[in-house]
């Protein structure tokens, strides 16, 4: 693979095939990789810059271990370098949140999620990280069940419902109003005189008042 020199923070052309991750060569032989147990296939690469793993769907992982978190600020520099690279990759920070590193977590969350707008996912151990990464890799081919569905709904029942929210208007009067005036806009702009033959005098006053009474 033709990668840019190591001076760049993020490699833009690291796109692993499905079921694979491209992983920074420094992870060779690590507990994380051992825990993949072949369920995630790994391609080792030297020139990934600050990124630890590339997943296939244009997202990548920056790994912050327990000792990184306790030791200090290097991980922050790494995350900021990633952020400043403007790589268009979505960055996921996986952090080992343990008894030892727990006290640093809330500061890290504020920094990563609220200030930088990246994703932060805590795990308790490299084994948990491996399981989470496995789910991310295997979910890539599936449409997320949490995506919004574009719903093109019929407006007729919505409008009928709206008319029935006018005080004093039930289903019968709502139907009569829509038969005569067709839309909310036209009902709203009808005079009491125009409303009276449709719904009677009292309701006509009430409907007109609902639309025209000033709130202040």
């Amino acid at each position, binding site marked *: 693979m033709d990668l840019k020199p190591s001076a760049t923070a993020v490699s833009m052309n690291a796109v692993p095939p499905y079921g694979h991750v491209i992983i920074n060569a420094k992870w060779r032989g690590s507990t994380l990789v051992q825990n993949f147990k072949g369920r995630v296939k790994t391609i080792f690469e030297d020139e990934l810059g600050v990124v630890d793993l590339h997943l296939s769907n244009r997202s990548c992982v920056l790994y912050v271990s327990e000792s990184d978190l306790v030791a200090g600020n290097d991980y922050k520099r790494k995350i900021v370098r990633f952020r400043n690279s403007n790589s268009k990759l979505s960055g996921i920070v996986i952090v080992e949140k343990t008894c030892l590193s727990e006290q640093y977590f809330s500061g890290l969350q504020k920094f990563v*999620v609220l200030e930088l707008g990246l994703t932060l996912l805590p795990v308790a151990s490299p084994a948990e990280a491996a399981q989470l990464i496995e789910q991310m890799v295997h979910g890539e081919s599936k449409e997320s069940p949490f995506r919004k569905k574009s719903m093109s709904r019929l407006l007729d*029942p919505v409008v009928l*419902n709206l008319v029935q929210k006018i005080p004093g208007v039930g289903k019968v009067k709502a139907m009569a109003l829509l038969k005569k005036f067709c839309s*909310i806009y036209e009902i709203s702009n009808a005079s009491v005189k125009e409303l009276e033959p449709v719904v009677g005098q009292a309701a006509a006053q009430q409907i007109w008042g609902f639309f025209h009474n000033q709130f202040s």
Partner: protein
Amino acid sequence: GVSIIRAPASPCVSILVDSHCISSGAEIVSSLRLKHGAAVQVCSLVNCDFIVSNRMAVEWQSESDMANPQNRKRLQDRIQSLQALFDRVCFIVEKDRTKPGEPLQSFQRSRYYDSTVAALVRAGIRLLVSQGPEDTAALLAELAHVELRKGQAICVPLEVKGPQLQALQFYLTLPCVTYISALCMCHRFNSVNHLVSSSLDALQAGVFISRSRAEEIYRCLHYSCDTTLI
């Protein structure tokens, strides 16, 4: 522990809380008001737990509820409807509470839990992890402050009175309208007719919503019903 009272130097933020959260989230509401100086209104938000800005909704669940596959359908439905209604959706996962005297149970992550996390991330939901009610309140206040800096903070009164109450129920029936949009409609238009007769531009600016949402509302207000189809 000793609680630090935040100096009211930071401007006050407004947060809406769903009435269903009151039994389990009373501590959050108190902490938001007393510690973080937030204006909090409890009301029926129906499809989300908190609204922290004109465009951001927050769903709040315990770790064990999220890990329970029986809640899968409900979670999917709620997140999908939030995604359709709000530009930004956050998800706060709160650590389960242990009662005093109970042994500390460590949470076991299942494949289901991890696949849910992965799917939420893929859908662009912002995940936040909370250690407990105090932490959840701090995160909500923080989110509201971030939105304030971005010019999206809730800027209308959280309460409605008198004839505005009927108008609110009417507005909430419109498509694409969230509780916060309906509140803006109540406070930024003099009457229901003022809103109904507004131009598309006036609607978009008055309610702080995207063009496409404004278009959908406008279309509904002007839509000619065929009563023979109902």
